[in-house]
């Protein structure tokens, strides 16, 4: 059974540009959809990774480690 999918519209010239790259990929990407999905997944993944923030306690622990080495 396939994943649930929804349609997203992109400009035709962009579609053509991607299609050229798909052809150049020597079979790595089967079609435009696969290429677009790969790029979007990469970007979403990075966004998720960037959300991390340190707590004040963690920040203090980091400074403590630096002081412990005589760096500060």
């Amino acid at each position, binding site marked *: 059974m396939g994943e649930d999918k929804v349609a997203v519209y992109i400009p035709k010239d962009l579609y053509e540009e991607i299609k050229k790259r798909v052809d150049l990929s020597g079979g790595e990407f089967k079609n435009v959809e696969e290429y677009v999905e790969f790029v979007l997944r990469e970007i979403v993944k990075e966004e998720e990774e960037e959300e991390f923030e340190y707590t004040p306690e963690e920040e203090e*622990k980091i400074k403590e480690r630096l002081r412990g080495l005589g760096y500060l």
Partner: protein
Amino acid sequence: MVDCIVVVSYLKVILVGVDGATYWVIRELLPRLKGFNKLTEEGVVCGLRTTLPPLSSCAWASIYTGVRPSRHGLFDFVGIGNDYGVHGMGFVNALRYPVFWSLLGKFGFRSVVVNPPMIYPAFKVNGVLVSGWPSPKLSVYPSRFGKILREVGYRIDVDGLEGRFRKDPDGTVDDLVEVAKVRGEACFRLSEELGNWDLMFPVFTICDRIQHFALGRNGWRKWVLKAYRVVDEFIQRALRLLRDEDEGLLFIVSDHGFQPIRKTFLVNSWLVKKGFAKLRYSHFRSLIREYIVNGISLRTIYWGASHKRLASLVGKINNLFLGGAPKRGRFSINDFVLRKTLAFASGTISPATFIWINDDRFRYFAIKRSKKNLVKEKLIDALLDIKDGSKENIVRDVVDVENLYDGNGQSNLVSPDLMVIANNEYTIDPWYVSSSYVVSPSVYRHGDHSFEGVFAAAGPSVNRLRNFDFCGVLDIAPTILNLFNIDTPPWMDGISLIDPDLLLKSRLKNSLKIKVKIIERKMRGTSRK
């Protein structure tokens, strides 16, 4: 799904990161280091240029990304906010450039990365990642590998080293050796558990820790040898593994070198003395305040003494009985009368540190931005003219870094204006103010960073390497990628050490190129935060 491409490679690569490993120290200890000896006989061991400043944070970030500090932005451990607050600059995780093992993962190569400094928390990788110093706590991806670390008794580092070294140097060194041995064991165990790994990349921090304390002291070899021996044992085991399992390459890389320190330049004391900064307290009052906070000792009297002869006498007694100057960390920028302070220094104690002009980027500025160039010029001239005694220059160079180190793209950090680089055997301390601006090194910091680390390579493919006499930390990431037939991404500043004419051409190369382009495009489109 096209998450990765399966590339069949005959290579396994073990990249051993050794924080602070130094070429000249290795040469001196070589007869007693079997692994390094083997590398010298069968491969190459040479110096490695580090970054400016020569700090672990920015050098490791450059090793991982192949990008200069001025571009990746992690130029120190801490930065200054416009409220003069000292803030952590964050970890490599937040940088816009990917680390080389993430790129390898995108091409299907599996890595085991243990203790990479400035990586926290552990993020998703194709393989295993154990966060590195100065992680506030241990972080592992995937978390199921944490069991192995608990079993071997893994520790990030030995805490509170400065104080421990002073009280019990031999015990502290032994503890560091234990931590390093466990780290090596953990790396092999994790690799075994993962299976089919392509890159093993542990980072040892023991050489940095022991050299800070030991270099420049009598009998330094005894302690330093222990540090290099632990690493050497790991190298010997790694060479055996590569020989037994497969054809493979072994690399050694350090983030910076080390040098013995004869003198410490108290840069903020100098700024006060030359009228660029004004203390909130008189020297006498600040001394009394210091005595109240820290107690009266020969150390505090020594650093506080104005009279040359008294300072010299107390210094001799201090060095003889107490082992050096006092602890640092008592000074903060708020101890200055900010409206009357044109410039101040901050950052990590090292042979290169930063000066900020207190202009209208700051809350209590003393000068408008439009007039700062005049102050900068005066400062550069004065800094380059500082002499220790009558002849020796303390400062080797002053670099205008405005617009270069732009506060790591973090809106709460202000870009420094000048970078001061000390001459050999001096370090720069912005955390202490005294009437003298040149003092003996502290008990802990008898050794400090230098600009030449070490690079080594051995294995059947080493003859495909070139230019290793001129290599720098920026060249490591492109080299590792090239070993796996991945082209150097266009955003990297480093140059691969592999001769392009000899680089194996994979039938998948074209499709690999396309993937690199995708990542590149994505990065160009990501605005700096």
